[in-house]
């Protein structure tokens, strides 16, 4: 079940950034596994909080599409991959929020 979701609808111009920041993520999950479900929920909370203009999110179920995970070099699920603005891989169920925010560069904004 691959789905592309646009959180928060359309993008808006941000103050002081001088242009749009485009966020694109891929979240690799294993069906309805408990960590996978948690990862999806945790990440969506972060999107709501820190990405007011939303983002592109593709959720990839490796039970459905194992070859995709293999070709993308994914080792375990859940794994969150940021494709844009810069490549970043975060492994785990995304429950350690401070570490997650730090990795994503949102630390200190709250």
């Amino acid at each position, binding site marked *: 079940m691959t789905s592309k979701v646009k959180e928060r609808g359309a993008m808006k111009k941000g103050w002081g950034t001088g242009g749009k920041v485009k966020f694109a993520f891929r979240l690799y999950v294993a069906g*309805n596994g408990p*960590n996978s479900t948690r990862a999806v929920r945790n990440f969506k909370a972060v999107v709501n909080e820190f990405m007011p203009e939303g983002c592109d999110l593709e959720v990839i179920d490796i039970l459905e599409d194992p070859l995709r*995970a293999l070709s993308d070099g994914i080792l375990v699920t859940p794994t969150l991959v940021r494709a844009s603005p810069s490549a970043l891989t975060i492994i785990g169920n995304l429950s350690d929020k401070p570490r997650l925010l730090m990795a994503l560069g949102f630390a200190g904004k709250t």
Partner: protein
Amino acid sequence: MTARSIKQDMSRIKELVKRLADAEAAIESLIAGQADAIIDPHSGALILLQQAQQALQQSEARYHRLLTHLSAVVFELDPAGNILFVNDNIEKLTGHAPRDLLGKNWWDVFLPGKHRPQAEELRRRLRDGDVDHYECYWIRRDGSPIVVELSSANRYHDQTGSLVGIVGFATDVTARKQAEQRLRQAAVVYDATPNAIIITDGERRIRAVNKAYTLITGYAADEVIGRNPGFQGSGRHNHHFYEELWQSVNETGHWQGEIWNHRKNGEVYPAWENISAVRDDKGTIVNYVSVFTDISSIKESEAKLDYLAHHDALTGVANRLLLGTHVDALIPRARRRSRAFALLFLDIDRFKTVNDVYGHEHGDRLLQMVTTRVKSCVRAEDMLARVGGDEFVLVLEDISEPHDVAKMAEKIIEVIAQPFWIEGREILTSMSIGISMYPDDGETGEDLVRAADTAMYSAKIQGRNRYQFSTVELTQRTRAYFSLQSSLRQALAGNQFVVHYQPEVALETGQVVGVEALVRWQHPELGLVMPERFIPIAEEIGLIDAIGEWVLRTACREAASWEEAVPLRIAVNLSRRQIAHNHIFDQVRSILEETGLKPSELELEVTESVLQDRHEGVEALEALSALGVRVAIDDFGTGYSSLAQLKQLPIDTLKIDQSFIRDIPHDPDGEAITAAIIGMAHTLKLRVVAEGVERPEQLEFLKDRGCDDWQGMLFSPPMPAPALRRLLAPATERVGA
């Protein structure tokens, strides 16, 4: 080492570092229990961690439930056809348990031996691609075949594209195939049957009719669809018939019977019809199906058979069977109405000789001619039946007297005795007849036939060409009747009639004031015969007028001869027939002239019925009354004369019917009627005479009520003229009786 190669190395090192970091993070998440699955970067295999495994197990359990509860068979084979998986339904369908099937070869199990070609065909199809809705058969564990539909059989491959297995989904369609087969058969039957079929909806609107329906009724399908089948009615049945019909269909689901319908051309025909109600699973009637056949031809042949079964082929008259039915029906009817009927057994004398001498063809022709002659003698309602070679039975209904039957028998004997002409030959024969009477000779048809048959034999013994009653007494009585009839013809010429006189006595004085003249027949052998016995015969043979005239003349002459001694009124009875004769006036007047009797001395007695309506006879009476002749009404009280009528008629005397007098003093009705008649007669200034007085109490009663005259045994029976003369001589000494 070039700069480019160094750059390449650097990027590879970065990549390795990233991978290491990812691996470290992966291991970290694994240790933290934050991972669900591990992917082997070399084989691509998935390693699901416990929690995920649970989820998968749940999901597997769900699939298993689905597979189990599915009514279909789901199976998975490896490319060689070995069974990797099969759900539980296979057992229900084929008798093989799933655990026994795992690892076995599908084709060997389900299409073994001679069924190989079918297996090969299916394998060939699977080699070519996926199979979709393919119907085939499998052999069950017990060897019987079942028809299955392979809804789908999909091949699946691994990542490299090589065939890994086949997943199939199959359903048992045996029942459906059978239903389809039945439907196809039904459709053929529906169109091919000679029975008409109508299918209506629950509201009895025609939805479909078959070809036979159109053939039988003449109505095409599109002329009747949507209509209520009631339009076919013939009008031969009332609404109760249809109410009962539909009640039966709705309550029992069926009705079957004979029904008259009409065709499109208006012709009415009988049909044998079966109507059934079709209900849905809730019990609501959704259709009615009517199947019927035209039975008009059956009816016709039935009627023909019925005729053949009940009639004699040679002569066309009824046979023994129909005779039995007829007599069986006649008996209760005759019993109810207290009527007699006669059964005549007719046998052609020496018929066997005719057959022997002239041959059977002549014999048959004679039988036909005899039938015709006998039929010419009888009434249409009398039944003639041929019950044997030359034996017939004739049934005469509503017969009151044996001598009427005897007359019929004589008539038949007479016509049969006339010569028959058959192909130029004269054949002479005769008939013997035995007669039995219901109810005297038997209570059943069988008894009556037997009695008549026996009587017929006794007629044969007595010399043939005659009839014989079953009971000797009847035969004698009938013979006596005919002998009386023949001697009656001689009686007048032989001077055998005599007139007796019964005196009429005045109640007050006890004096004889008149006499009633009563005719008697002095038979040479039988002695004195009363008029009740010979007057009906005389009427029948036309002698009544002559006898009536003789009595009138004789009575008048005798009365005239007494007149010199005692003045007596003479009463003479006139029958209705005599009065109706237009010359009664002339007759009476000339007799009075001839005998010298004074008109006032003659009293003519007529019954009430004579005066009931006006006719010439009444006018003659009026004319005679004008001459001075007196008129009396005899047997008064039994007719229906009204007071108004009596006033208009030329009447002088009322004679009270003796039935009223007889009941006095025991019957209050008799007394009341007698008193009323006396009162009424006096109002009309008529003389009243009481007849049949036998007891002093009666005389006493009449005296009290003021009756004028009386007659009866108490004073004297009717007596011959000489005796009367002797009685009258000392009359004055008998005052008071």
